[in-house]
């Protein structure tokens, strides 16, 4: 009894103190931002967090590298009634889920985000990348294939079907332990026309057909679950080629000088961006909105491309993309959206995957375990 009272009293005191502290500001003076860690988080820190903190004295920000389990953690926070995150970086598919479950806040993009310098409204500037009412896009990234230049002989691969051609390119391949991208590539190389792929994939026979194609290289595949594994495997020479995010391959090639080449063919484009958790107190929400308006404007998104090879989600940012901050190389040719790289691309079909994800996932995992 006494313990409960003490606990209650101390809790009340803490809450009161926090309330008194926040009063009068209108905006909270600290933010907890959630991201993926590594080079990507560093690019966000340099491109918009540091400039924002420099403009607003007395504000502090903390990173939580928990984007990988953002959906689960936000559910738990919601249930515990204790939202400790202010802004969460997630993939588009996760943003759709969070929005559907009511865990992320719906945003009026035109009202809350800055317009392009030429006056184009934010929603037009972001265009198709706004895949959900809760989603504030930052970058376009792609899942693509890298290969060891010294292990592929005189004819480096130019087509995605090199993945399935173990005669010309013998050796192990690293692939994602999830069906996304793998099944599309499998059907494409099994002779399905690109436009028909999702029609075929929505049937049982089509799904089996994709797995049957993957079966031809199954004993040659190393399955990865973290995107960092493929660059490590390529650097080791354990695999001759492997899929991962294009920024990881860029880092291994340009920053680490590894003998790796990029195969942009049939790259799978996807978006990554912010969501604001539902149920933030007013002062914290005001701070987050102020930050978001700054961090997603045309210049800031273009700045981010100086640190990592992901394309800005705003159309108006593309012409502003400049040189790499440290290496001084032109960044535009390394963007997944560069015309030379984007000759043959898939754009992740969120609606298709929302409908078929569970089915195909279950089949894929069962096939993996065989």
């Amino acid at each position, binding site marked *: 009894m006494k313990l409960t009272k003490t*606990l*209650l009293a*101390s*809790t009340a005191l*803490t*809450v009161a103190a926090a309330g008194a502290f926040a009063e009068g500001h209108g905006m909270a003076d600290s933010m*907890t931002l959630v991201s*993926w*860690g*590594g*080079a990507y988080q560093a690019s966000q820190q340099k491109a918009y967090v540091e400039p924002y903190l420099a403009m607003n004295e007395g504000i502090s920000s*903390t*990173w*939580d*590298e*928990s984007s*990988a389990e953002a959906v689960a953690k936000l559910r*738990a*926070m919601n*249930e*515990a*009634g*204790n939202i*400790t995150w202010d802004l969460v970086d997630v993939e588009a598919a996760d943003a759709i889920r969070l929005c559907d479950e009511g865990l992320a806040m719906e945003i009026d993009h035109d009202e809350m985000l800055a317009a392009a310098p030429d006056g184009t409204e934010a929603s037009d500037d972001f265009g198709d990348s706004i895949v959900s009412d809760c989603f504030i896009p930052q970058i376009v990234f792609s899942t693509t294939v890298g290969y060891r230049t010294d292990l592929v002989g005189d004819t480096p691969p130019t087509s995605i079907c090199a993945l399935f051609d173990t005669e010309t390119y013998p050796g192990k391949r690293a692939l994602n332990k999830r069906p996304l991208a793998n099944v599309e590539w499998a059907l494409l190389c099994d002779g399905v026309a690109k436009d028909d792929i999702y029609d075929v994939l929505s049937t049982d026979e089509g799904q089996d057909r994709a797995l049957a194609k993957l079966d031809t290289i199954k004993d040659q595949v190393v399955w990865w679950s*973290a995107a*960092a*594994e493929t*660059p*490590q495997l390529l*650097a*080791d020479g354990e695999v001759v080629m492997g899929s991962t995010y294009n920024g990881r391959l860029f880092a291994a090639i340009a*920053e*680490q000088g590894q003998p790796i080449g990029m195969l942009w063919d049939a790259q799978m484009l996807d978006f990554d961006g912010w969501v604001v958790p539902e149920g933030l107190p007013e002062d914290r929400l005001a701070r987050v909105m102020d930050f978001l308006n700054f961090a997603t404007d045309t210049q800031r998104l273009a700045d981010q491309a100086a640190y990592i090879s992901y394309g800005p989600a705003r159309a108006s940012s593309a012409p502003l993309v400049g040189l790499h901050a440290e290496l001084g190389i032109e960044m535009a040719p390394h963007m997944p959206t560069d015309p030379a790289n984007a000759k043959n691309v898939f754009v992740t079909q969120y609606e298709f995957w929302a409908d078929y994800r569970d089915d195909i996932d279950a089949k894929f995992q069962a096939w993996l375990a065989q």
Partner: protein
Amino acid sequence: MAVETQAIRQPLSFSVPAVAAAGGFAGIFVGTAQGSALLGIFLGAILLAGLTWLAMAVLPERQERMLRWAMILGFALVGALVGGVPGFVLGGLFGWFFGWFVYWIGLGRYRTTLPPYLTAGQVLWHYGFRVLCGAIFVFLVTPILVVLPLSFNAENFFTFTPEMLRFDPAGYSLKHYRDFFGSSEWQQALRNSLLIAPVATLISVCLGTLAAIGLSQPHVPFRQAIMAILISPMIVPLIISAAGMYFFYSRIGLQGTYAGVVLAHAALGIPFVIITVTATLVGFDRSLTRAAANMGAGPVTTFFRVQMPLILPGVISGGLFAFITSFDEVVVVIFVGSANQQTLPWQMFTGLREQISPTILAVATILVVVSIGLLTTVELLRRRSEKLRGMSPG
């Protein structure tokens, strides 16, 4: 040893197959490294059988020194041809070992340190047991040893680069150590760990020792049940404790605070203290406390002057376990802490998952060195105090 056993020259029918078997075993590793384990076994066995035959049947015994040097040089040269500098060193070591091994087996020297009445089976077990222990030791220690040189890698991968294998200084660098000491995230994590672990240990030791003393009194009711509840954090899967703590602490405002993480870690550490202190209390003579009371000492004085010094080893080792539990813990802190309370294990966990950076290896190396230093100090202090108290014959 009082009895000297004579070394007896063994027949070729014994020494050739025995050495060949060892050669085949070594061939597994060399062969696997070169691409074919089977071929390695085969060639290793043939090579060593031939060398044994040469040493035992062809060359006279006084040529031993010459043949052993020849083997060291020969193996080292072959190693250099295959694997450069490291191959040379490894080859030399192989040659040295097998040069010794051929004569050790062939001339029966392995019997000289053992009593003469042992049967062949007993001799085999004697050495088999030692080899087994050595193998277990190697399997336990190798993963830790591999980490040490990799942490000096000049590249951002967990790979022994060709430069490193050639012992080229350009392949080595301290950049991952600079990364660790220069990054505010890692430094914050280190500070958090060094702040949380000692406080949690202190709480665990105080509460755990008191609980152990209380529970060792025969008149306390429900002793078994209370003991079971207190020890449960050690038995219940960590993830369940963590999830439970998360929801409870969220409601009372402790989630995401230092106090919350410290309390959670203290709860995890208490069972270790209770168990070690209870174990030392078994050997504690209760008549000592009664004698102290008889002399007019209160319970508190009795505890600090009589009981505490005698159970101190148990308290210290319990505290050490509690400290390691908190310092190593990653599951509970992810739930109960927030980004401001990121500890070293948490930072290592996220770093390993999101980008496989050798900074983690540098941190691991530092932690290994610090742990070895700490354990050595504690052990030396313990021996010294035992010597001072005359408890140990050493």
